[in-house]
C-alpha cells in the first residue's frame, strides 16, 4: 500500500477520439512514474462543488508518456463522465493514485490482450511495456459499432502495435466479436478488460482451453483505497473482495464466474 499520491494536476490535452469518447492527457509526473499497467487513478473535482461527479471516478491508467504524462480514455456514460469530457487544457483535477494491483507479465509466453470498448484503456499501457520487455503481444479490440472505434492511429502511436479490430456492424475492421480473434494454439496468456458479457465469454474460453487469464474488472467505487468496501466482486471461495485494492486485476481462478 506504500506510495498512494494525492495531486492536483493539470489537463494537458483532451481530444475527441471516437463517438462520445475522449483521450485525456494529464501532467502527473510522480503518479506516472510510480504506475504499473493495470493500475488506476481516481479522478475528481474536489469539494468546492457538488455537481456530478461529486465522488471521484476510477479510470485505468491508459499509457504513460516519457514527460510525466498519463493518458485516460474517457467515454461519456452520464453526467459525471460528460463533465470529464468537457475538461480543457489547463483545467485542474484531483488525482489519487496509482491504485490497485497491476497486471503480471508472463515469462516466455505470448500475450493476447482482449479489449471491449473502453476496456481498451489498460492495454494502451500494458502493450508497450510488454513489448519493451521483449514479449510477443497481440491486441484484439472490439466495439459495438465503427463510430465508437477509438482513433486507431493513436492506438498504434501509443502502443507501437496495430490492433486487430472487430465491430458488430462490420463498418470498421472485421465483422464479429473480439473473441473470434483468439487462437489458443501457441498457449498464450490472455488479458481481458471490457463489458461483463465479454469477460464471461472470455473466461469460458480460457477455462475450456486451459489458458491463464488476467482480467481487469470494474465496479462502482467510493474511496479507491480499500476503506469503504463498496467495490466488491465475488471471489472463487465465495467472499466479497475489493476490486480497488485486491484488484482491479484478478487471475480468473480467483473469481467466481456465474454460468
Amino acid at each position, binding site marked *: *500500500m*506504500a*506510495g*498512494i*499520491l*494525492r495531486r492536483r494536476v493539470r489537463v494537458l490535452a483532451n481530444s475527441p477520439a471516437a463517438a462520445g469518447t475522449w483521450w485525456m492527457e494529464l501532467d502527473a509526473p510522480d503518479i506516472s512514474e510510480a504506475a504499473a499497467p493495470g493500475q488506476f487513478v481516481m479522478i*475528481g473535482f*474536489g*469539494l468546492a462543488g*457538488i455537481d*456530478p*461527479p*461529486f*465522488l*471521484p471516478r476510477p479510470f485505468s491508467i491508459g499509457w504513460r508518456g516519457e514527460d510525466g504524462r498519463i493518458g485516460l480514455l474517457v467515454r461519456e456514460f452520464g453526467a*459525471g463522465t460528460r463533465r470529464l469530457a468537457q475538461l480543457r487544457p489547463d483545467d485542474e483535477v*484531483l488525482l*489519487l493514485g496509482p491504485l490497485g494491483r497491476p497486471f503480471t507479465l508472463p515469462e516466455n509466453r505470448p500475450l493476447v490482450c482482449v479489449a471491449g470498448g473502453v476496456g481498451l484503456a489498460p492495454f494502451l499501457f500494458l502493450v508497450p511495456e510488454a513489448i519493451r520487455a521483449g514479449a510477443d503481444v497481440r491486441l484484439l479490440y472490439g466495439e459495438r459499432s465503427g463510430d465508437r472505434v477509438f482513433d486507431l492511429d493513436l492506438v498504434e502511436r501509443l502502443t507501437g502495435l496495430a490492433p486487430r479490430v472487430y465491430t458488430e456492424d462490420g463498418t470498421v475492421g472485421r465483422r464479429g466479436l473480439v473473441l473470434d480473434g483468439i487462437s489458443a494454439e501457441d498457449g498464450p496468456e490472455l488479458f481481458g478488460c471490457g463489458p461483463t458479457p465479454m469477460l464471461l465469454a472470455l473466461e469460458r474460453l480460457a477455462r475450456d482451453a486451459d489458458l491463464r487469464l488476467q482480467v481487469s474488472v470494474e*465496479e*462502482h*467505487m*467510493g*474511496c*479507491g*483505497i*480499500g*476503506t*469503504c*468496501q*463498496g*467495490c*466488491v*466482486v465475488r471471489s472463487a471461495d465465495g*467472499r*466479497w473482495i475489493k476490486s480497488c*485494492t485486491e484488484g482491479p486485476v484478478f487471475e480468473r481462478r480467483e473469481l467466481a464466474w456465474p454460468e
Partner: protein
Amino acid sequence: MTQTVFGVEFQGPVLLASGTCGYGREYADLIPLDDIGGIVTKAVSVAPRAGNPPHRVSETPGGMINAIGLQNVGLERFRAEKLPWLAENLTRARVLVNVVGHTVNEFAAVVRGLDDAEGFLGYELNVSCPNVEGGTLFGTDPVALADLVARIRATTERPLVVKLTPNVPDIGLYARVCEEAGADGLSAINTFPGMLIDVERRRPVIGNVSGGVSGPAILPMGVYLTWQAARAVDLPIIGIGGIRSAADALQYILAGARLVQIGTALFVDPDVAVAVHRGLEAYLERHAVADLADLVGTVEIRTP
C-alpha cells in the same frame, strides 16, 4: 484547538467517521492521522460479516448512497491485526471502535473482547445502520436502546458513545434514553435510508435495494437533528452528516456539537480533515474566540 471531551483531551475536534476510514491504516499515505482529533473504526461485530452484494455504492445528488452491509473482519481479527497498528501509529489521535451486533449479547461480547486491549479510547455503538436487517432495531426502540446502553455501561468503564439514527420522529427522546442509561456521548447522525433506481434497467441501483444516504445533501438535516439532540441532553455530541468545510463543521458546533466527524467528503478529497481543522483555527482567530468550546450550542435563536 484541544478539546476536553469524555474526560480526555482531543488534540482537535475533527474525527473521521466510521466506515469511511477503514481501520486507519488505509489512509496512512494520505492523511496525517496522528495530527487530527481521531478516527472511528469500521464497525466490528463478534463474527466476521460478508456484507451485501454489489452495487454497494453510488453517487446521488450532492452525495452518495451506500449499502455495504457491515462487512468486517470480526472481533478476533480486529484485535489481532487492526488494533496493534492503531496502538502503534495513533498515539495522539483518539480512536473510537464502532461496535455492532444483532443482540445485546453480541454487542457486549465485542466490548468484553476488546476492553483490556490497547490502541483505542472507547466505543461508538452502532444502533443505526440502515443497511442490514435489524440494523436500526436498537436505534428506533427506546426500550431496547435503554437496555443495550445500560448493559454495555455495566461492561466497560471506557467512554461510551451511541451513534443515533436520524430515522425517528423525535431524536431528543433517544438522546435522553442514552443519557439515562449511562452513555457518555452521542454521535448524530448516521445515514438516511434511501433508494436509487436505474430507469433504463428499471431496477434498484443498489444491490441491497435501499442504502444509507450521506454527503453534503444531508447537512441541514444533520445540523437540525444535532440541535434537537443537544437541547434534550447534557451529553457531549459528535456532529456528523455532510461536512466538507470548516463552515459546515461550525454549523454543527453552533448547533451543539463538541466534536465532528467527516465521512463521505474524505472520498472526494482526503485533505479535507486537515483543511477543516485549519479552517476552524482561522475562524477562531477571525472572530477572536479563545476556545472552540465557547461556541458550542451558541446559535442565537431570536423570537420575533
